[in-house]
């Protein structure tokens, strides 16, 4: 074979590149619908929801003149008469257009009590006589408190750090310094650490129960395997709500377990097994166990039995053969399963809500509370952001930890 001429080589290379490019374009074309789909119904809605956690446009929409008048206000002393006049005009107009209640609710987040102050003043705004400062003060002395006006300026937006700070138990003072909130309002970090702690415990419990189970299922007779996998999979086919309700029946004060314990004489009085942390763990482990067992089982099935026999023939005790030969080979399955369980636990809502007390609620319960019950989108979005970031950080940590050891693809 003779070497090709340089010109022919270049042609060939260019041709190959063209073909490669064509292939890429076609491949990209094929995934475009999926990408567009993901973008439209997954990425964009989440991004726009997260925007709520920093946006604060209510002031500008509902009280435009006041917002403009406050733009150059230093905040050291009460604003001038024109600002009071602007607010009077805004309130009168907003009351007629029914836009005042929204901004009153927003300002109430800055200082509790401002909602009724704004509503009460708005009701009278139409008839307030100038000079407006005196008229406002006559309605309520809080209009002569500089803090009220600072609250309006803080809310003027269009962006605000308050929601994201609040979910970290922080708040911003007027001078810009960031301080911790009063201890009796500091709840969010507690929720965050509790969410992580409960997820870790559930994951460890799943590993402790699931590993031997998957091991047995992978290496027993076919009949027993079908039985074990069936009983792990069966709960999968039943809705979480039904499973949770079933556990309530089993674990309640006069339920099956308590009756059995009393009958056996292990306890004299029925013990608390549900509506506390213990109950939440039991139900969560039950619901999440298949997510650990299935990946683990499929990896264990591929570990050749020969390896263990080879280890014993070389003189390893069963324990050391397991630790040095079997366990390392099963770790990819364990890593994937544990990661699934942990990340699913982080966002758990139904189970703690139904079988836990207030001390067993996780971050997602705050999202629900703010979005559905209170209707504070900013806080709901900030709590969701916190949850999303925690999940991403856990995922990256997990995959880095396991990939570094070659346990994950």
């Amino acid at each position, binding site marked *: 074979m003779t070497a090709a001429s340089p010109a022919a080589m270049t042609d060939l290379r260019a041709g190959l590149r063209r073909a490669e490019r064509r292939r890429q374009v076609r491949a990209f074309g094929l995934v475009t619908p999926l990408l567009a789909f993901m973008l439209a119904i997954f990425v964009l809605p989440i991004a726009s929801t997260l925007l709520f956690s920093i946006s604060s446009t209510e002031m500008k929409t509902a009280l435009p003149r006041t917002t403009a008048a406050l733009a150059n206000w230093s905040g050291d002393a009460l604003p001038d008469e024109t600002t009071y006049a602007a607010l009077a005009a805004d309130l009168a107009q907003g009351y007629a257009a*029914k836009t005042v209640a929204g901004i009153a609710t927003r300002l109430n987040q800055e200082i*509790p009590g401002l909602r*009724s102050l704004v509503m009460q003043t708005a009701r009278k705004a139409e008839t307030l006589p100038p000079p407006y400062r005196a008229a406002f003060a006559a309605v309520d002395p809080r209009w002569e408190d500089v803090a009220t006006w600072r609250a309006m300026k803080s809310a003027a937006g269009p962006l605000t750090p308050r929601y994201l700070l609040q979910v970290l138990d922080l708040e911003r003072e007027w001078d810009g310094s960031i301080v911790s909130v009063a201890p*009796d309002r500091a709840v969010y970090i507690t929720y965050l650490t509790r969410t992580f702690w409960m997820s870790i415990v559930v994951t460890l419990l799943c590993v402790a129960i699931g590993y031997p189970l998957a091991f047995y299922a992978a290496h027993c007779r076919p009949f027993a395997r079908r039985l074990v996998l069936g009983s792990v999979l069966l709960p999968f086919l039943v809705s979480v709500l039904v499973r949770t309700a079933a556990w309530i029946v089993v674990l309640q*004060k006069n339920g099956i377990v308590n009756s059995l314990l009393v009958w056996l004489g292990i306890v004299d009085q029925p013990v608390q097994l549900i509506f506390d942390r213990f109950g939440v763990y039991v139900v969560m482990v039950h619901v999440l166990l298949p997510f650990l067992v299935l990946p683990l089982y499929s990896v264990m099935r591929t570990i050749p039995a020969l390896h263990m026999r080879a280890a014993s023939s070389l003189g390893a005790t069963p324990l050391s053969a397991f630790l040095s030969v079997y366990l390392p080979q099963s770790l990819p399955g364990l890593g994937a399963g544990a990661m699934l369980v942990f990340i699913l636990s982080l966002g758990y809502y139904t189970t703690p809500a139904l079988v836990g*007390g*207030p001390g067993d*609620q996780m971050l997602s319960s705050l999202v629900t509370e703010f979005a*559905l019950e209170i209707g504070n989108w900013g806080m709901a979005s900030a709590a969701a952001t916190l949850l999303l970031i925690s999940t991403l950080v856990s995922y990256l940590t997990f995959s880095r930890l396991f990939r570094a050891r070659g346990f994950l693809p």
Partner: protein
Amino acid sequence: MKGFVGSVLLAAVLSIAQQGLAQARDFTVTAWGGAVQDAKRNIYFTPFGMEKGIKVLDDVYEGGWAPFKAMQDTGVVPWDVVQVETAELVRGCEEGIFAPLDWSKIGDKKDFVPYAVSQCGVGTTAWSIVIAYNKDSVKEGPATVQDFFNLQKWPGKRAMRRGPKINLEFALMADGVAPADVYKVLSTPQGIDRAFAKLDTIKPQIQWWKAGAQPTEWLASGDVALALAYNGRVSAALDEGKHFGIVWQNTQYDVDAWAIPAKSPYIELAHQFIKYASDPKRQADFTNIFAYGTTINGADKFIKPERITLLPAGDNLKTGLHIGSEEARAFWLDHLEELNERFNSWSGTSE
């Protein structure tokens, strides 16, 4: 292939057109789901549709602000009459989500109980929170709100609704505050501390409920000794043959109201429906199934006599606290978020 693309496009166009037409939907009313929904359908929705010769659909609304926020943001109004609690009624009225009512089309305000009448709402179902206990396990029942906090005489768990609302008021009344002064006391930091301190005395024994069905289930199963529960749920359990006792002292009551979304295409028909549903006989029919109070004068004579004593009405409300009063609403609109945080922080720690 061309035929295929064509037919897909045609289908798409048709489905969009259909959605446009769907704007002209049938008259739709909401209720609170479950067995209550069935009763309201049989008593109000279906007969009203037959009388008018129209189709009346019903949908479920179970509280919260989210559906109204969605109406505000999207302009899509799926309901023509919605049954709401006072907090949403007032907020929706202030924000222009509900239409101000033309009372001349509904009836004389004087015929209704006073707390059923407002600018955007007509009360229809009065409910209250009462102390309930299981007579099978509690031989001598409690008689006062103070007894609820007496762990010596009535040991065991207490079921209470999770959240600060209702419980702070309850604690203050048990601590000796008169119902008329509850919100004055709560409006001071000392008053709030006092309420939490009172709750502290039974805190380890509280089992918090979220769904209205839970407290009566727990009473029946023996999980709790005493419970704060909706009176209608307790009566429903009595109807099923349970032996529950009720303490009416300092009961907290309110009324759910019909309201009309301002952008409904059936404003006129909605007024007619509310008038139809404010008929004494029809309200009594509902009360005979579920022991919630009526809001219109003259309903009493249609109610079964043994029912009357189980209703949030008359003597049962003598020491009661109206939690839908203007004072109560103003307090909670101002302080709910703040007290929710404090409640979450307080209830999440064990001591």
